[in-house]
């Protein structure tokens, strides 16, 4: 019963998503929105592997996004085919994850979270000033091309392709595939030995260790897997918009987005991060462009999104740890009870 219901809704939705590029609705606006949604679902899902399954809250995931984006731009500008740079971007992000994850994951809970904020901000500042640093160092000067490696605060630009429409469509499907890949990975992890180990770590690290879980290795592997997916997302983002700068791709808001989406949707679940990402994009898209007319007062809602996210976060932590998914679940229970009660009432009558 419920399965067929899901099929009936899921099928058309999927078909609609696949067809979006052909419908050319609202001048490609929906397509861009779809692209962003898929990208954010990928990142939300990726963050959830470390933050949701293993319970290690990272405020530093923008480092992977940024590194992925920069890897692609730097390599592409040196003549390497852009598509080839995607796996490289993932791998570099993953290695960076190993670099800071190995020491930081020895910290627990709150300390890890704080350290990741530090790592994220330090990385952003480093990237902002990398060119200047290299310029002052005679050994490293060779990495600069026309005096530029990361382009400092101005960032880097990629050349635009001739047929931009077809290019964008190709990326739309590409990132859709990436999203399904991420979801598949997340599903495999959740239902396999790996996920069981991560959950055990999440619940009680010492107990997990004494029943044989190599907690250090598992946490690092989760971080690297997560970083890999986010790095690829960054790479694809860079290729889609042709322009990146450190404040955008390494910025704290990017890290916050990755924390908020899975928590809002339902942390530690498979579908929660998807819900959260969709919610996030919709809020951002609607609110950033909306104006509220209250008689004479015209209130721009353009910067209400933090209020929405922050408020939701507070409510979720206080009342419903499983986020939107948990609310949905409660609603179902309530609904079934009501149905049963009305059924009983009709039987009596």
């Amino acid at each position, binding site marked *: 019963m419920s399965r067929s219901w899901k099929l009936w809704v899921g099928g058309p939705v999927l078909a609609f998503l696949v067809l979006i590029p052909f419908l050319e609705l609202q001048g490609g606006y929906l397509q861009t929105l779809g692209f962003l949604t898929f990208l954010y679902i990928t990142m939300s899902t990726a963050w959830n592997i470390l933050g949701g399954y293993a319970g290690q809250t990272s405020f530093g995931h923008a480092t992977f996004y940024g590194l992925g984006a920069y890897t692609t731009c730097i390599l592409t500008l040196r003549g390497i085919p852009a598509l080839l740079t995607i796996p490289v971007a993932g791998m570099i992000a993953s290695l960076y994850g190993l670099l800071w994850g190995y020491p930081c994951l020895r910290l627990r809970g709150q300390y890890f979270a704080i350290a990741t904020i530090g790592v994220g901000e330090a990385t952003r500042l480093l990237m902002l000033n990398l060119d200047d640093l290299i310029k002052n160092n005679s050994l490293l000067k060779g990495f600069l091309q026309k005096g530029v490696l990361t382009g400092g605060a101005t960032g880097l630009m990629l050349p635009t392709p001739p047929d931009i429409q077809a290019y964008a469509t190709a990326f739309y499907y590409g990132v859709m595939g990436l999203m399904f890949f991420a979801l598949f990975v997340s599903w495999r992890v959740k239902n396999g030995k790996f996920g069981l180990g991560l959950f055990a770590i999440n*619940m009680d690290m010492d*107990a997990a260790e*004494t*029943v*044989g879980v*190599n907690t250090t290795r598992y946490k690092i592997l989760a971080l690297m897997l997560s970083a890999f997916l986010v790095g690829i997302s960054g790479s694809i983002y860079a290729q889609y918009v042709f322009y990146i700068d450190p404040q955008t791709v390494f910025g704290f808001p990017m890290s916050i987005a990755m924390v908020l989406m899975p928590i809002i949707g339902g942390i530690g679940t498979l579908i929660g991060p998807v819900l959260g990402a969709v919610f996030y994009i919709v809020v951002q898209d609607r609110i950033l462009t909306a104006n509220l007319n209250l008689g004479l007062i015209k209130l721009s809602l353009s910067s209400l999104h933090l209020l929405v996210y922050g408020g939701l976060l507070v409510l979720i932590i206080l009342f419903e740890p499983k986020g939107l998914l948990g609310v949905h679940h409660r609603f179902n229970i309530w609904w079934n009870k009501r149905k049963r009660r009305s059924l009983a009432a009709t039987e009596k009558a």
Partner: protein
Amino acid sequence: MAILLEGRKVSRNFGGLAALLNVNFQVRSGEIVGLIGPNGAGKTTLFRCITGVHPPTFGRILFKGEDISKLMPHHICVMGITNTHQVVKPFPEMTVLDNVRVGAFFGKGWVRGEVKDATQEALRVLEFTGLTSKANFLARNLTLPDRKRLEVARALATRPELLLLDEVVAGLNPTEVDRMIRLIQQLRESGITIFMVEHVMRAVLSVSDRLIVLNFGEKIAEGPPDEVARNPQVIEAYLGKNYASGKSHYA
């Protein structure tokens, strides 16, 4: 019988405090050894030294002749030693079955390739420990006796050769104590060596082949239960003040 576990001058400091000082001990295969001593004597600390959670600051611990005193807990578990926790530590938001599956997946059994299907193994262990009917409960919803059983079940699922039980009987009512004692005896029959800390004298005296007594981090006596119980030093340190209540435990 072969020596399974041996401690040589095991010592452990916390800051300035010596929680363990030069403790020598041996556990032979197939034995049940009881570890007793007043509160704060260092029993739990000794177990943590063995499992690698708090490695000894000085001294060595040998398992089948191999030095394990510098290994990580998960490594020691995979070699065949695991423990239950005095303060139970279930994975609260996981089902009872999943709790036990963690042990089956990551413990010694899986590595040796004996266990192909961790779920089957977990179900078998649940059957053995009498938790089958609660397999799908979340661990946080269990009662204390069931949580203690879950501790044992999860540890068993790793297929240990040596099982360290830290006060698994404490806090249970007399019927439950009997059930747990029977379980421990069954474990021994299935070939697992047991090293157990216990305050409930009835439990420890009825199952142990041998007792080791700690006081203020030092070993003060060792031997068959009745002999140890007669040892004046032990009576002074352990039963001293409340000999009467100690006696009532015997009854």
